[in-house]
């Protein structure tokens, strides 16, 4: 497994009030994303454990775009990855911030 960590300044803080959300599952070509709202509103950290080695540059680009485009401030994001493609990663991250914005039932 390869471990990667990012700590980024986030232009927009996450909406909603849920403390945490989880999307996806760990499977071949898939990943899970756990989001916890426990950081300062302008910070987003992303920790990744991935089965696919040597894609650090790609992850770097994906998570930077994600934090720049979506509302991810205040989130500690943790990822377990079964070798998902970048498009799947980007989709799960987007699904994650949408889920943590949903009202609690």
């Amino acid at each position, binding site marked *: 497994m390869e471990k990667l960590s990012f700590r980024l300044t986030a232009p927009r803080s996450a909406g909603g009030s849920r403390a945490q959300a989880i999307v996806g599952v760990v499977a071949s070509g898939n990943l899970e994303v756990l989001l916890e709202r426990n950081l300062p509103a302008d910070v987003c950290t992303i920790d990744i454990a991935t089965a*696919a080695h040597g*894609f650090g*540059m*790609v992850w770097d*680009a*994906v998570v930077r775009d994600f934090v720049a485009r979506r509302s991810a401030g205040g989130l500690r994001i943790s990822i377990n990855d079964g*070798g998902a*493609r*970048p*498009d*799947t990663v980007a*989709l799960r991250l*987007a*699904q994650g911030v*949408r889920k943590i914005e949903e009202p609690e039932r």
Partner: protein
Amino acid sequence: MSDWGMQKAALGERLAAGRQHARGKVVPIPSLGAFLTAVIRSGDRVCLEGDNQKQADILASALANLDPQDVHDLHMVQSGVVLPSHLDIFEKGIARRLDFSYSGPQAARIAKMLFGRKIELGAVHTYLELFARYFIDLTPNVALIAAVSADKDGNLYTGPNTEDTPTVVEATSYKNGLVVAQVTEIVDKVPRVDIPGDLVHFVVEAGRPFYVEPLFTRDPAAITETQILTAMLAIKGIYAPYGVRRLNHGIGFNTAAIELLLPTYGEKLGLKGKVCTHFALNPHPTMIPAIESGWVEQIHCFGSEVGMEDYVAARSDVFFTGPDGSLRSNRAFCQTAGLYACDMFIGSTLQIDLEGHSSTVTTSRIAGFGGAPNMGSDPRGRRHPSEPWLKAGAEAAPDADAALRRGRKLVVQIGETFGDRNAPLFVERLDALELARALKLDLAPVMVYSDDVTHIVTEEGIANLLMCRSKDEREQAIRGVAGYTEIGRARDAKLVEQLRQRGVIRRPEDLGIDPLDADRRLLAARSIKDLMLASGGLYRPPSRFRNW
């Protein structure tokens, strides 16, 4: 006086030799080896019928079992190199030279044998191109073909999978070649005459159906959210604005997703009757929901699809069927239809370079082209206008005189930026070039040339190459939809943004599409079972696709 009947005389000799092993036209299975040894001459050009679907499999294994002492140096001219026996023929030294179109499952072995000089390669053709050469310089001396049934006179019924047979027989039989057909059974009267008995010299009763690969069945259960997103982009960003009514789809999951989104997403966009009314297309099971909900007026087919026979027969308003009620397919005609009478081809590929050339060849696999380059090319001989054709032409050359301006066929490559095993779709240099160098080929096996492709669709957006005015713009347009591949990450962000302002690149948000709406619940069928139910039980999927 010169003898102008040498070929006819040679055919007479073959017929006489063959009759030693036959009763009338019928060759008993146990005599098949001796028979083939008698009628095939070393050095013959032989067409062993087989494409990406049907296979004259009994004749293929009989040919592979001949003694290379008796028969050798054959020149195989055939659509498909698909069965292991097709390559055994070369391995054993029965055949030496090969001209073909498609190799699918044998792509890796064929590459190995080419590197090992076991095969002398003529060329990798498109279907239509190989068919054309049957009539010019690759006319077979012997054709070994497959049909469903024959009568005692050799009249053949090919059933829904007629495919290449009429073309092969036409070229062979009318040029003094010998035609041998394997059939499931010999009957008193065939349900319809697909091939007249006059053209068929011998018949082998196989006792079982010829092999058919269900190549066009895509299980909706395997369609991903990203593929759904690309399908939404294609429908809203290309089908709708150009009003594409006449088209061909490739066999990938992206186009299967499009087919399954028509009755849901397409309906919501109000596109019914405005797009996708006429197809050159095999009976894809994923077309069932669109057909059932009245989207499709007409479909002409290259071949059939396993399990779709009864469904097709029950939908003769849509499909071409014979007097017996079942599908009539014809690969040559359908390829021609796809080339000249369709306004769009959309399909996936394995690699696209910075100019827009695309290829399904990798350094270790030669999959061949099949029909994609026929569909995926702009026919310079086209003269009839249509709205999408004219609109595309205008985008390519806005300043030209409208009355003299050629239209353009829409040739769309669709796919995710990363494929299997995270292999990038976009590359600096096609593997096909490496292969051409290693095999000393004159031509790299390019599937769709850069000057034919008009649009590239990925999950990141649509690049409209018709609207690019320079090589540089074209490159940035491609980089602009190449996602997180190296090609994509090396884009000039400013130029890409300018292209987006001009509408050359259109992102999901530019089209009002939220990637988070790309949900499997949008699919009109999410499983093979759903397709079966949508067909009213008429579609009978092969066992391997079932989960009930």
